[in-house]
């Protein structure tokens, strides 16, 4: 057990609260820079797509949010699992912090996709595989959030929703795979595919920048929400008053 002391120290509320605070600027500042550059490059500088015209520019929001919707659920599931198995409050706090962010990005992906679908396919919605699986992912987030909110007691909410998140985590790939088997008309992978990306650099580089930017933004929001969740869970919150005054946490 002694080898894990650093781990438990990190997991203690004062330390993790301070750590999240310290990490925040390291996420937030590059996030804004990358997003500024990436979105400018994508929305203004990049050339029009020869098929889709300006409509394609929505990809700079759409694709990163699709990625973050999945990343969010993975973080959610893994940290919920850690919290459940090792009875670690910090992990539960992280899961609780990440869930609404992931849900928002899922929603954003659906909205941008729908807006894109209108010019491309002539309808806001079609029952295509990836669309459907993204919609199901949103339902899974909503189920998780609804279960959390149906408990009064944070500790119980943590543990109950962690079970759901874990079951969900096992199911995400199965759902993805099954829905794909069912039907597909959505655009294939253009970035992550064998043989390298099929996209001119002027389009690709801003896309990569906005991927990185949105991911860092995700991390930055997660830090802020994590701090709030830690305070929420703390029964003796005197230490954070101290650290607010002295600027140093003590445990």
């Amino acid at each position, binding site marked *: 057990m002694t080898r894990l002391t650093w781990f438990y120290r990190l997991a203690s509320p004062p330390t993790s609260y301070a750590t999240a605070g310290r990490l925040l600027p390291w996420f937030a500042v590059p996030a804004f820079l990358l997003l500024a550059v990436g979105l400018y490059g994508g929305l203004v500088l990049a050339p029009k797509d020869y098929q889709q015209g300006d409509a394609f520019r929505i990809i700079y929001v759409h694709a990163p949010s699709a990625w973050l919707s999945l990343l969010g659920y993975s973080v959610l599931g893994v940290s919920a699992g850690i919290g459940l198995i090792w*009875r670690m409050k910090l992990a539960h706090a992280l899961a609780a912090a990440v869930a609404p962010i992931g849900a928002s990005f899922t929603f954003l992906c659906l909205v941008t996709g729908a807006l894109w679908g209108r010019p491309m396919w002539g309808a806001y919605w079609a029952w295509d595989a990836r669309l459907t699986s993204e919609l199901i992912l949103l339902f899974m987030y909503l189920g998780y959030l609804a279960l959390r909110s149906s408990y*009064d*007691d944070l500790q119980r909410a943590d543990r109950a929703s962690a079970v759901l998140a874990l079951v969900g985590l096992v199911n995400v790939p199965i759902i993805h795979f099954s829905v794909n088997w069912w039907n597909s008309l959505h655009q294939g992978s253009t970035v992550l595919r064998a043989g390298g990306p099929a996209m001119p650099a002027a389009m690709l580089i801003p896309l990569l920048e906005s991927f990185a930017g949105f991911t860092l933004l995700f991390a930055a929001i997660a830090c802020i929400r994590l701090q709030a969740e830690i305070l929420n869970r703390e*029964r003796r919150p005197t230490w954070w008053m101290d650290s607010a005054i002295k600027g140093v946490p003590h445990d």
Partner: protein
Amino acid sequence: MAASLLEVRDLHLWRGSLHVLRGLSFEACAGDVLVLEGANGSGKTSLLRVLAGLLWPEAGEVRWEGQALDDDRAALGRRVSFLGHEQGLHADLTPAENAMFATQLRRRCAADEVREALAQVGMADTDRPTRALSAGQRRRVAMARVLLAKAPVWLLDEPWTHLDASGVRLCQDLIEAHAAHGGLVVLSAHYGVDFKSTRLRRLGLS
């Protein structure tokens, strides 16, 4: 005196934002009848549920025969018989069916034995479903379940709720006998714990 069967060290328990148990420590040996006393909301039920492994304390430890609670759940189950505020009886089953099932979860058991235990608590020949019993009759059946489990440790939360005077006396006798045979009884009660016994020990919660 034997080594302590149950050891509680510096137990801290929160329920929601309420710090209910604040550093509770005590021991109990085989043969003891430990009575938890305290006003409404002082944490008797909570403590019993911690001892039974149904609630997790935030800090401190509970050891049964030196073993921590989470080391071996099955051993805990073999050791403890629990009677909470709820009876643990299915409303659609008869007393005999209920008692039989609960007992068979733990050990083989013949119908005779069940009948005998039910007779002991005065519920011998009721073959209505439990929902058609009065409140006190249900409590009696639950007590029969505790008897039948033949566990060395009884955790009883206000065992005489709804019982009439003769029922209370009956339960007191059963508890006495269990302790005399080397069992440990931890119970909470607001009244009826003034019975003569050399084994009675009290633990005040506040």
